[in-house]
């Protein structure tokens, strides 16, 4: 293994070691110590991650290539080797760094947060258990990040799911928490079911479970038009099915549209858990998976991804407007932002989506921790309607939270090329979408592009990136149906996100204003509010991270990791400098067009929220009265829970009722009828026929059987040994017969 890989592997194993330690001796370590052990472990991982990142940064492409070592062959499944190894590229490293760094902040925060909670079950504190779970979680997430094969990724994936179940249900004595945990777990299973079928298809059709191998097999399969591309199911090619099924996993884990219902409920877990799992890392796993399987997605599958993302981001953002629980607002905003990322993946904005993932991880962790601070400070009051004016009591929390709000709203100064994370990342996603809808068409279906001289075709803003790293100038011929062109995307896929880009600043501002500004609405809550230092330190660190982890730091790293997508069109945003080197093409037109459309969305959103809530809740309540039906629809979250309850639970109940009725009336009736008939017949036959003629005959037969049985029964002694003897005798006879024959 190369040194880099060793660094990563050790970084993965340290949290596992911490988990083992805490699981076995955590109870003896006691309350704060157990937490600090976990913090120490994850901090060590962060240091390793930083070292790895710096080392990677200083390497030439050749050195990077050389740093890969052969994966361990774990077993052979038929002819397919199951290998475990480290997937070494920029994305892995930056994700590794992000996960460890954000986790460290959250761990430190948790030590402060959990110390104040009574968490005794049967007189034993489960404080250490919390940190054991957190460590296990970090281990699984890091394993997921470095996994180089779909199988290993799936293993880590399931571990992540298990940890989320454990952590959401941490307060399992609370019915709602245990329900939420089960809901999260079951909902994720639905997605994983698709994932594992997709995995089976990868295994069956591509015959290689490693990421690189599968991509290679996919490309070869396409070139040879293998069964995967020629066979269709329900009018959709198997390749597309495979991509969609694999993506199902991401739907579950990233809380996308049909399976998004678990994430808001998951807010039952302790707030640091919400920050860690439901903002920074676990839900990111879905996007990360989509990024990894991007090369296996056909254009149709990409469209599916985009549509799912679009639906999700709009639904979640609308629901977020009316939520009053501070954590739920954040939860819905998370879903919405994840929708943006998935949409980005779907329209081909690979780099932009991952960039958004990274920036989002920072500011969402920041806001969740901020909300945790608020909740803790207000003695577990989560209702924003009872807060207000907390700025004076907890200034650090207030202003760091504002940084997060600005970042998620995409605040920036368009012309000056300055802004917070969301400003660039969301803009890039939208730019790509714009390009797919309105961009200039490129000519022909045959493309020969070489890395590095992209700019020679000014209007062809699209590149078919082949594995040009190895063979530049490779000519790839691809037929029309696999060739998504600009102008082929439905305009809705651009305009809905744009619209939601106006909604996002609104509800985030609403959340911040209601919590921190205005007049205190509940004197009791206000009087006791306070903030603690241990808990706001991570906030400051994350706020700084949010400020700096933007365009200039992360964007190039992600861009460097851009895969060599095959059969797909990788679009890129503005970053001509970085992308140029990577061979992706840029459309400046898109960005110019976007400035008037969405560039000032955050100003509009903030302004609207400020106008509506600057004097407290009265104005908003009046507005809600006016728009009663819409408001009700949103408050009930589009009735998704009710719908699932009705269709799934109600459907089951309906089937049950039908079965019951059928059982009771039809079958019972038939049985009763036949019983009655039988009774009549038997009364007749019993008296007349049986006692006369039959009995005599039967008795005769019975007696005969008895006698015969007595004869035959003699060898059936019920003794094992005698049976062995008989069997041996039989074999002996057979053998002797063979000899004599």
């Amino acid at each position, binding site marked *: *293994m190369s040194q880099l890989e*060793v660094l990563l*592997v050790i970084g993965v*194993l340290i949290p596992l070691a911490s988990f083992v330690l805490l699981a076995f001796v955590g109870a003896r370590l006691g309350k704060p110590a157990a937490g600090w052990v976990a913090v120490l472990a994850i901090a060590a991982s962060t240091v390793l991650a930083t070292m790895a990142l710096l080392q990677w940064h200083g390497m030439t492409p050749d050195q990077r290539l050389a740093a890969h070592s052969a994966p*361990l062959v774990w077993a052979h499944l038929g002819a397919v080797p199951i290998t475990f190894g480290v997937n070494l590229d920029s994305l892995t490293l930056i994700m590794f760094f992000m996960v460890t760094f954000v986790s460290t902040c959250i761990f430190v925060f948790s030590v402060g947060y959990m110390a104040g909670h009574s968490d005794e079950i049967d007189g034993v504190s489960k404080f250490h258990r919390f940190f054991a779970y957190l460590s296990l979680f970090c281990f699984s997430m890091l394993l997921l990040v470095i996994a180089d094969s779909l199988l290993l990724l799936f293993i880590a994936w399931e571990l992540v799911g298990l940890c989320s179940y454990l952590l959401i249900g941490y307060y399992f004595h609370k019915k709602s928490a245990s329900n939420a945990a089960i809901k999260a777990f079951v909902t994720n299973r639905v997605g994983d079911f698709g994932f594992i079928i997709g995995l089976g298809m990868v295994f069956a059709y591509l015959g290689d479970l490693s990421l690189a191998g599968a991509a290679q097999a996919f490309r070869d399969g396409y070139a040879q038009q293998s069964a995967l591309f020629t066979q269709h199911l329900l009018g959709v090619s198997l390749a597309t099915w495979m991509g969609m099924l694999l993506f199902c996993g991401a739907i579950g884990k990233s809380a996308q549209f049909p399976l998004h219902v678990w994430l808001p409920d998951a807010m039952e877990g302790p707030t640091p858990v919400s920050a860690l799992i439901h903002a920074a890392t676990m839900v990111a796993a879905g996007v990360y998976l989509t990024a990894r399987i991007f090369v296996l997605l056909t254009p149709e599958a990409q469209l599916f991804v985009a549509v799912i993302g679009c639906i999700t981001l709009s639904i979640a953002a609308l629901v977020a407007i009316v939520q009053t629980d501070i954590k739920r607002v954040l939860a819905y905003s998370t879903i919405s932002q994840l929708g943006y990322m998935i949409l980005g993946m779907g329209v081909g904005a690979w780099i932009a989506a991952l960039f958004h993932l990274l920036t989002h991880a920072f500011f969402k962790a920041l806001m969740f921790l901020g909300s945790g601070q608020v909740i803790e400070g207000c003695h577990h009051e989560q209702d924003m309607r009872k807060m207000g004016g907390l700025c004076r009591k907890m200034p650090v929390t207030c202003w760091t939270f504002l940084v997060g709000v600005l970042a998620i709203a995409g605040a920036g100064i368009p012309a000056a090329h300055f802004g917070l994370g969301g400003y660039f990342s969301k803009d890039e996603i939208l730019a790509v979408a714009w390009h797919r809808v309105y961009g200039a068409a490129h000519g022909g279906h045959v493309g020969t592009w070489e890395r590095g001289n992209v700019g020679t075709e000014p209007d062809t803003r699209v590149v078919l990136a082949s594995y040009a790293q190895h063979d530049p100038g490779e000519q790839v011929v691809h037929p029309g149906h696999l060739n998504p062109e600009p102008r082929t995307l439905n305009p809705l896929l651009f305009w809905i996100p744009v619209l939601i880009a106006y909604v996002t600043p609104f509800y985030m501002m609403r959340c911040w204003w209601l919590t921190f500004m205005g007049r205190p609405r509940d004197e009791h809550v206000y009087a006791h509010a306070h903030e603690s230092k241990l808990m706001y330190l991570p906030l400051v660190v994350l706020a700084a991270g949010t400020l700096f982890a933007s365009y200039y730091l992360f964007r190039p790293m992600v861009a460097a990791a851009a895969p060599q997508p095959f059969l797909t069109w990788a679009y890129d945003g503005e970053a001509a400098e970085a992308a140029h080197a990577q061979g992706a093409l840029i459309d400046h037109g898109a960005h110019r067009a976007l400035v008037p459309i969405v560039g000032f969305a955050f100003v509009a959103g903030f302004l609207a929220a400020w106008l509506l809530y600057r004097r407290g809740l009265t104005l908003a309540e009046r507005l809600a009265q006016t728009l009663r039906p819409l408001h009700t629809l949103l408050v009930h979250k589009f009735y998704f829970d009710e719908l699932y309850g009705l269709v799934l639970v109600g459907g089951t109940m309906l089937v049950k009722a039908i079965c019951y009725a059928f059982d009771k009336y039809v079958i019972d009736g038939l049985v009763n009828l036949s019983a009655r008939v039988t009774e009549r017949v038997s009364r007749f036959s019993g008296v007349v026929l049986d006692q006369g003629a039959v009995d005599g005959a039967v008795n005769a037969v019975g007696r005969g059987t008895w006698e015969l049985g007595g004869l035959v029964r003699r060898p059936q002694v019920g003794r094992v040994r005698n049976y062995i003897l008989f069997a041996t005798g039989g074999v002996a006879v057979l053998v002797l017969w063979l000899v004599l024959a």
Partner: protein
Amino acid sequence: MAEFTTEDALRSRWSAAARPRAVRWFSGLGVVFVLGAAALGLLATRLTGMSYAVALAVAVVLLLTGGSCLGAAVVVQYPRAVGRLLQRLGLPLFLLAVAAIIVVAWAPVLLWPDKPLIVRDVLAVVGAVGFVSLFASFAIWWERKVAGRIQSRLGPMRVGGWHGWAQSIADGLKLFQKEDILPGGGDAVLFRMAAYVTFVPALSLFIALPFSAAWVGRDLDVGLLLIVALFGLGVIGVLLGGWASNNKWSMYGAMREACQVISYEIPLGFSLLIPIMVAGTLRLTTIGELQAGGFWTWLAFRNPFTLIAALTFLIATLASCKRAPFDLPEAESELVAGYMTEYSGFRWALFMFAEYAEMFAAGALTAILFFGAWHSPLPAAWGAAWATGPLWQQALHGVVFSGPLWLIFKGIFFVYVQIWLRWTLPRIRLDQVMHACVQFMLPVTMVVLLAQTFWQLLVPAGSVLAVALNLACTVLGALVALGIASIAVYGLRYRRRLVGTLVVDHLPGS
């Protein structure tokens, strides 16, 4: 009572008339035997195969018998001189005899190495019997001495002059003459068989135990496993003996032993896996040669995990050899003597022989696997020139760099550690024994195994981490060795103060 002096002990027991005759007979027989042995040896060089083996074995036996007869003749003729000599040089002579027996038994193998394997086996068994009997008698005396010193006594002092060195030989003679008692109601056949079933595996494991790269009966590719298997086999004899004694204490002892040995075989096996993993083989000579480069290349000091494995291996062998603190099967305060309660005389001696043979084998195995096998702490490469030089250089090489003497020395050292622990630690209860196995030894060995696996996968040899930890472990081991040595020197220097007033100055050799 008249005082019994050394002079009395050295007085001849033979009447003036009988003495010349005895001397004549002994010397005559001795010469005949030795000549016969020589003739057979010469004959053997012309023979091949089975007859060669038989001839050699008979020759060795004749040589030993003849030597003994000549020795007896000398003793009878010059009792006083021999007595004084033994008094002065008793222990060195005894140790020399041990070495001589081994050399006599092994010389043919080394002189004619390309004869059939079965010949080597026969000779190895003869050598092993000789070695085991001598070692057992030495170790029993040694154990009594160590026990005495630890308890501020002197231990056996009288028989044989210098520190009672011949005590075990005298005891052995006594045991041969004792009545062979069979317990009433017991199963006589099983009672008799049990002693052999215990003794034979303990003896035959010496076939595969290398004393050096060349001094090995059979250099099997599964040698290590064979030794472990034979370690486990002795238990059956103990079980049978305990059952056949028709005595509930014996039975309890036997059950305890079986329980304990089976349980500790698992951590033992796990600890063994670590040297196997490092060496990539089960062949003991290969494992031994791996550690030829000085004491920092000894397996125990390779990295922290091998060090822990060495410790767990030591503990597990303690349990396998039923030594304190795991000596429950023969806990004298509870079970009289456990499974050996009903045994007496020669059969009891067989059990004791088996026990001490296993102790030595365990110590030697520890040395081979973890502590440099038959190599001295100096790198063998320094003495490479001597290894092929003339005979005296080769001999010197064996003493200074690597040879069977080093393995015997290390084996005796680990036996000494076992003895030391026995007289220092209290016995633990059976449930504590099992608890220690399942709750402590098993997890520790498993974790170490896992850690070693990852170590080998992830840490390349020669990397900074590997070298640093190797160094640290070596220093730790060296410190422990220095500590033991300094305690020993201290004890030797102030032995009179330590033993206290019990020292009786007129005792011989005190």
